[in-house]
């Protein structure tokens, strides 16, 4: 696990962990505020409203040229290229802050999603555990056994799916805080924690092999060994939803809306504009 991941986890565990017993809304607002402040900061530093406005005006002027110089064959023949070039410049100017903020915001969002995208399995719920094997380990001939299982009422599997080279387990959770299952696939042992909780906890629905980019995308747990037979473990948690009035929607969607609203508010307060 990278030091950046570790640092971000510490920060977010501190931020959201404190709110784990509180309202999901407070945590969402906090997460949205964190992301939007970063977004506004990036736009503040990297945004070039004058340049965006100038490039937009130039693009529009190029279009007006068609109207003003429509008698001129030379202008007509070169108009398309000029308009497209001006538009490309305009779009690139407009999205420059987005490009600059892409990496830090992705990392931050992925960490936030680990908290808000899914909720833990409830007591007596059915959870499916998928293990994707590497191509050199055929699913039918690779030995699999459950070494240890705690906190589950029932375990069904493994179900072997040769078409996908996948192993699946159906786990029914019991009335404990954390369920845990340890599997041996080939010679390697894999331990998967399945939280059983109603509170806000960090979840890792997907664990992959240790690659820098994948680490950023699935930041919650330690990555899998690159030499082992399993390349990915997916735990199917239920989606976390919140109610906005009578409307049930996913927490991550609400997070996006909140981030947008807070970004606009921040930009307004700082007198910031994209163009």
């Amino acid at each position, binding site marked *: 696990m990278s030091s950046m991941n570790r640092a971000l986890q510490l920060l977010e565990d501190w931020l959201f962990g404190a709110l784990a017993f509180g309202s999901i809304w407070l945590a969402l607002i906090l997460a949205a505020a964190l*992301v*939007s402040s970063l*977004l506004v900061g990036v736009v503040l530093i990297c945004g070039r409203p004058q340049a965006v406005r*100038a490039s*937009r*005006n*130039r*693009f*529009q*002027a*190029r*279009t*007006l*040229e*068609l*109207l*003003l*110089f*429509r*008698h*001129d*064959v*030379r*202008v*007509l023949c070169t*108009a*398309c290229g000029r*308009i*497209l070039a001006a*538009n490309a410049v*305009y*779009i690139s100017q*407009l*999205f420059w*802050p*987005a490009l600059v*903020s*892409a990496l830090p*915001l*992705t990392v931050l*969002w992925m960490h936030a999603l680990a908290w808000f995208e899914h909720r833990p399995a409830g007591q007596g719920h059915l959870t499916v555990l998928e293990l994707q094997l590497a191509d050199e380990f055929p699913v039918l001939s690779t030995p699999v056994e459950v070494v240890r299982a705690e906190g589950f009422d029932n375990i069904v599997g493994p179900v072997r799916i040769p078409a996908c080279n996948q192993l699946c387990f159906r786990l029914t959770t019991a009335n404990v805080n954390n369920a845990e299952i340890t599997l041996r696939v080939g010679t390697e042992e894999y331990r998967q924690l399945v939280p059983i909780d109603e509170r806000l906890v960090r979840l890792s629905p997907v664990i992959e092999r240790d690659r820098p980019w994948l680490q950023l995308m699935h930041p919650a747990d330690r990555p899998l060994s690159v030499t082992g037979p399993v390349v990915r473990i997916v735990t199917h948690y239920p989606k976390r939803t919140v109610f906005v009035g009578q409307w049930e929607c996913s927490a*991550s969607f609400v997070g*996006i809306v909140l*981030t*947008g609203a807070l*970004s*606009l508010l921040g*930009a307004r307060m700082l*007198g910031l504009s*994209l*163009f």
Partner: protein
Amino acid sequence: MIWLLTYVGPGAGMTVVGSFFVLLTAVGLLAFSLLTLPCRLFLIWRRRRAAGLRGRVPQVVVVGLDGFDPDRMQRLFALGRLPHLQRLAGVGTCTTLQTTLPPISPVAWSSFQTGVNPGKHNIFDFLNRDLRTCLPELSSVRTISADGQPWWRRFGTRVQMLRKSQPFWRILGNYGIFSTVLRVPITYPPEPFFGLSLSAMCTPDLRGTQGTFTMFSSDPQARAMVTGGLCIPIERRPRIETWLPGPADSRGGSHTDLRARLTIQIHPKKFEVYIRCGSESFSLELAQSTGWIPVTFRSGLLRQVGGLCQFRLESLTPHVRLYVSPIHLDPERPAMPISHPQVYSIYLAKLHGAFATAGLAEDTWGLNSGAISEAAFLEQTYRIHDERERMLMDALHRMRRGLTVCVFDGPDRIQHMFMRHDDPHHPANAGRNVTEHADVIDDMYDRMDALVGRVAAAILPDATLMVLSDHGFCSFRRGANLNAWLIAEGYLTRRTDVAAGDYLSDVDWTQTRAYAFGLSGIYLNLQGRESRGIVPPEDAARLRQEIAGKLQMWRDPQDGGRVVSRAYDAHTSYSGPYKSNGPDVIVGYERGYRAAWDCAVGRTDGAALQDNTRLWSGDHCVDPDLVPGVFLSNRVFSAGAMSIMDLAPTILCLFGIKPPEYMDGIARELIPATQTPCVTEPERTMAESLA
């Protein structure tokens, strides 16, 4: 992608979608233009063929330098300066250009564009008088208000062009020759033709005036000095809340004009202020000017008008003095058309940024009344000059065929305001610094020369370049109040029961035979023309001769010199249907004299001759023979003195079009380059011309 969604969602997304709509429109427009192009080209070809058109040049570029003086140019030539103009003179034509009677810009540029004398184009001065009320009105534009009309006829205020005849670019357009006409005086309101035009002189500011600046001052003495602008009193406090007056509010109400909130916050330690005007906020250091700041005046829930102005902090201690330039119409969203087609000003603004649109863009009144310093005025003038050069260069880049005309006002404005530096005995020098800007005018000529060099480099080798000025320049030391002179000579009688005032308000019309108004001359109080006329038409010719004769005998008691070089009888000097609309006697002053400031606004009191102590220290409203313009070209034209009226028929001929019969100018022949170049000719005098 979530961060992208968040970024796009609030506004950028709509913008991106909008940009694709624009793209879509552009593609549609392009397809339409390409599909219809063969038809349009065929129509132009047929029209040209029917007219037997055989042009000798593909492109003509005319650079107008308002007030560029041939004498000064020759002096600088002798010093080895102005290399680009010297090169033009060496390979092509360099001659003086006979100007119009009177030699003032609206008259001269009207003659340039129409090829006719003022009797045919109806522009005789900046101002004309209402024959019923004797109140002044612009000579080239009449605003017809929709107020009082039934609701179904209230299509808004109409602006009517009073210049008659037609500009030669309209004739070119009839033959399918495209023109770009930038800032040629007396082109407001813009007229339709096959080409693009941006209006100039007489284009109003947002307040509907010819340029009213605003001064915010905490100094009561400075407030008293301000003329030609508005002065808003403020108190010097850390935070000053005030308002910027805008155009008249047509809804009525407690205020007569629309207003924009203005907050001036003084920085406690630095020499700067933080200004918030409407939705714009910026900081401004002492003796610094802003660029064009957009201001919006709301006149209802969904109605607003936008303008542009520049701010300058002239003083901070002990008194705050903040200058705001006249509010120009915003070219990107003009409150009234200032270009043809209307999108042309929008195109220019989008391509080059905001630019000055008012007719008299350089704020000479601001400098004249001390609202801004000479340095600030120069900065403003050169900024406007640069804006115009960008437009011209863009037009040259776009157009490789047809006509391009651009007039630069900088030489005129700078010579008006800085001529005193050239004249050690000028009355305006008393108590003023004469060394700081001593070389401003010569430096300006160098700049104009560099401009001509850039234009010459930008055009194709087979293009014809013409550089011309509408008149020359001289010092303005003494003002002549013609009304006071008319009183002394017994032609004008004042009422004793009315205090002296502007616009002939104290004239006893029952006993007045002649009166003066504006810059150019004297009007007879003619029966049947003036509402209270007393001079019978049969006496008019004799009276004109009598007044002209006496004017030529007028001597200045200060040195015994002549005040008037020549007085012209308008009825013999002009020809055409409108000659009776102008002054009856046109006064050609000697160098150093001009109509006094009071006389221009129709005042009758004061001395007949008075020193001109204002910073407006140079002028050209003298005898036309004393201030000819200049004409240079990279082509050799047939020998002989040229008149500004010759340009229109000459250019028409260059494109192979026979000039219309009504034109007074003579088409000059283009001589092949192998022949001997034309040499500088002595100018044809106005007297010779009239003969």
